[in-house]
């Protein structure tokens, strides 16, 4: 088993030596960026945008002030891998933040941690305090010319805050709702200044790339998915938890069976949600694909944040759809009409269907129309992806749902 990211906890600063960061301080920033680009590290927060490209763009922005933000809001149900990193490898996360800041030329950064994450917040507060004492934060870090200040922000407690533009609004003390893009945060982010937002895991992985060397890293994985990924495995498996896997080394079914040790209570596997409730489900017959960005995409879904939720035959499909739709209904920021009203109507239709025990042709037609509209016209990623789960369940279990329930 690989352990780039999943390691024994290190909480004392004395046990951590910041080798990657020290190396970075003695290397031209362009070279670091080019390594991250060669490693083709894709953003682990869900959108999968290449981190190296983002760093390069951020570095090129001309501005006296720039910011880096570590996105540790982790609000999607079933995702807990960032929490794992914050609790076990906080120094590595800090190191990733330092490196990204140094490379793009930022002197101020924020780590935005989900409000409910009490323990990680405590840990990271201490980390910042100790780092300041040890000269890892502040002026002339480790004797270099590099000054950097880091502030911890406790999340405002809404899923939308994880969206980078909403997160920036939240840091600025505004109502957390998405901003219209463009401009992207890279051009105009916090307080209108160029801002680099990266997920916790992305930053930790960047540290590994520098420590292990690009070659070692790129030797792992598949054609389009290099290295390793943390998976938050949950749902009806015997052993849920955080697992690190090399891309392509296991199929989704193998993840369920080998890592998750099969379905609880000897149940039957029905489908897997590969990347959190904002992604489409993969039914039984599509589970024998390698775990990689490209294979999951080809199967019609998305790696998302790596939240893999396993669902057994025991569940009522209408209930499941309703639960997911209700989650999104309560989490829309309420700014745009298709998302706010579209999800609300889907919830109503599903509530009625639940009472009735099955869906009608008309329900199918209406929900499909609403999903399409919300996907095409919503203002931000939350709305656009909110009905993926529902639509994909409808698509794969049409007959079952029309006939009278998923028992």
């Amino acid at each position, binding site marked *: 088993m690989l352990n780039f990211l999943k390691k024994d906890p290190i909480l004392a600063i004395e046990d951590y030596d910041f080798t990657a960061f020290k190396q970075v301080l003695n290397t031209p920033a362009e070279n670091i960026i080019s390594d991250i680009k060669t490693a083709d590290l894709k953003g682990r927060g869900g959108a999968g945008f290449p981190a190296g490209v983002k760093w390069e763009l951020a570095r090129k922005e001309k501005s006296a002030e720039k910011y880096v933000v570590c996105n540790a809001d982790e609000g999607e149900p079933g995702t807990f891998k960032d929490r794992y990193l914050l609790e076990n490898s906080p120094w590595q996360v800090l190191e990733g933040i330092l490196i990204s800041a140094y490379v793009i030329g930022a002197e101020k950064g924020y780590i935005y941690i989900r409000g409910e994450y009490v323990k990680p917040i405590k840990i990271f507060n201490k980390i910042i305090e100790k780092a300041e004492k040890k000269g890892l934060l502040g002026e002339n870090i480790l004797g270099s010319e590099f000054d950097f200040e880091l502030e911890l922000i406790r999340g405002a407690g809404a899923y939308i805050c994880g969206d980078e533009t909403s997160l920036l609004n939240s840091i600025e003390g505004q109502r957390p709702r998405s901003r219209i893009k463009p401009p992207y945060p890279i051009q105009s982010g916090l307080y209108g200044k160029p801002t680099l937002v990266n997920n916790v895991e992305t930053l930790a992985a960047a540290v590994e790339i520098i420590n292990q060397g690009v070659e070692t890293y790129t030797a792992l994985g598949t054609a389009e998915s290099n290295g390793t990924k943390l998976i938050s495995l949950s749902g009806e498996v015997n052993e849920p938890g955080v697992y690190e896997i090399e891309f392509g080394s296991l199929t989704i079914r193998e993840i369920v069976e080998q890592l998750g040790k099969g379905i609880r209570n000897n149940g039957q596997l029905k489908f897997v949600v590969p990347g959190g409730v904002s992604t489409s489900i993969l039914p039984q017959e599509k589970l024998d694909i390698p775990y990689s960005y490209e294979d999951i995409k080809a199967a019609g879904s998305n790696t998302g944040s790596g939240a893999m939720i396993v669902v057994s035959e025991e569940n009522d499909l209408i209930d499941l759809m309703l639960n997911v739709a209700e989650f999104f209904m*309560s989490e*829309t*920021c309420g*700014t745009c009409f298709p998302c706010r009203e579209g999800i609300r109507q889907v919830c109503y239709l599903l509530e009625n269907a639940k009472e009735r025990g099955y869906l009608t042709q008309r329900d199918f037609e*209406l929900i499909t129309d609403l999903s399409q509209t919300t996907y095409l016209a919503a203002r931000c990623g939350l709305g656009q992806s909110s009905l993926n789960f529902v639509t994909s369940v409808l698509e794969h279990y049409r007959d079952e749902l029309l006939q009278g329930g998923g028992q």
Partner: protein
Amino acid sequence: MATALIDGQQVDFESGETILEAAEKVQIKIPTLCHAEDLSIYGGCRICVVEIEGERLLKPACATKISEGMKIKTHSPKVREVRRNIFELIVASHDISCRLNCLTCSRNQSCELREIAADIGANQTRFDPIDKGYDDDRSSVSIVREPNKCITCGRCIRKCEEVQGVGIFTMANRGPATVLTTFGDKGMGNVECTNCGQCIHACPTGALHEVYHYDRVWDMLKDEDKFVVVQTAPAVRVALAELFESKPGTIVTGQMVAGLKRLGFDRVFDTNFAADLTIMEEGTELIGRIEDGGPFPMFTSCSPGWIKYIEHFYPEYLENLSSCKSPQQMFGAVAKSYYAQQHGIDKEDMVVVSVMPCTAKKFESGRGEMDQDVDFVLTTRELGRMVKEAGIDLVNLAEEDYDPMMGESTGAGSIFGSSGGVMEAALRTAYELITEEELEELDFEPVRGAEGIKEAEVEIKGMTVKTAVASGLSNVGQLLEKIKNGEEYHFVEMMACPGGCIGGGGQPIPTNQETVEERMKAIYEIDAGKKKRKSHQNKEVQQLYEDYLGAPNSHLAHELLHTNYIKREI
């Protein structure tokens, strides 16, 4: 110049233009709802989405900059379907029911949802309406908010914040519970709202409208024992016709007078008369301050939205306000004393109604300092409703004249309706009173026009009088900040609504830059057509002083025509 293709039409554009703006240039109308020209971009309603070749998702035309070589489809089948679906969602969330239906809605003539329905060919509503069950906010004496009709487009928030610099609205909650409310949900009557009514113009629906007085005015007109007099503000006559399908800027003074007589008012008088009277009082006050050396600047006091604004936000300048009541209130005070006495009418039996372009006048008439001199205030829109209800074909009526004693007015009184008008009227009179010479050039061009802040210097008897004019409360705020930072003026005219009263919160909808400019032209046309263009030439005003008040700023004048102000919390 770069080019792109919109629906197969080549379009040239400047960098920074949105798809919405570019489409207009090739005669393509993209429906919009949360967008408004004078406000920042919101991108919430998504009714304006368009298809861009190569893009997976649709993009909002109001928020997306057009770029070189873009190929855009504004009305493709996909776009049309999405728009119809969004529309159906809005309708379902809009709580249309028998109780709330369009027929009785304040916006039954001017609803943007209805315009969109027509523009997108909507022909079904498949979703069950949602009963939101909010209570109406009736805490304000000027404005009612009906949250069940609110679609949370945020236009009122942006109008109040960006154009009026007040900012009493906020969006609360998340998800379907998202609701537009006032800060702390206190209600519009309990916050810093200035009652200007600009938010009503921003609103695409009937979620905001004035507090109606017209049913009570009908009751008064029915009551044989009441002597009901009406006054009409300068800005009403250049806007009322818009409610009867006429072009903005159509002047219907005489027709309006005839219509009011048909409605059954016992006397039809002119607020312009009171505006001339205001100039006599305010001009005299200004001359007094010039002689006494201040306090400067002296601020005009005829816009009640501005008064409430300064009381909340700049109370340290209250002594700079002219002590003059507004023309509406001067009229009421004179009607219930001078006119009532001269005609042997018991003050208790007299009912004074005003027709105003303004929602804040409703608040003003109820101020404790005002002694109930004005009983009811109708907006221009409410008068339109009454005229329609009475079946009167207003624009085709034969013109009639105002009733004597309080019906005469000069050009100076007429221009009170426009930003810069009070200043110009005051200067015409002050100049002649101070210099005792005739003013040759009556038009003070620098204080005219639609700009938010205007400045001018006038030489009067060797003295340079520095003046400034601001309209729209965020401009007012800017000018005040300038003054705070040491800029010195003698006389400053402030009006709450952009463009002055012609852009008031009670005017016909739409009130926008275009309609305001047309109404402004009409106002100056009225002035230019008058033989007498200076307030002190008004014979009936002269008579009033002779028979009753004595001289401007006399003891009685002070008692009836002047007022005081209070500091309010923020």
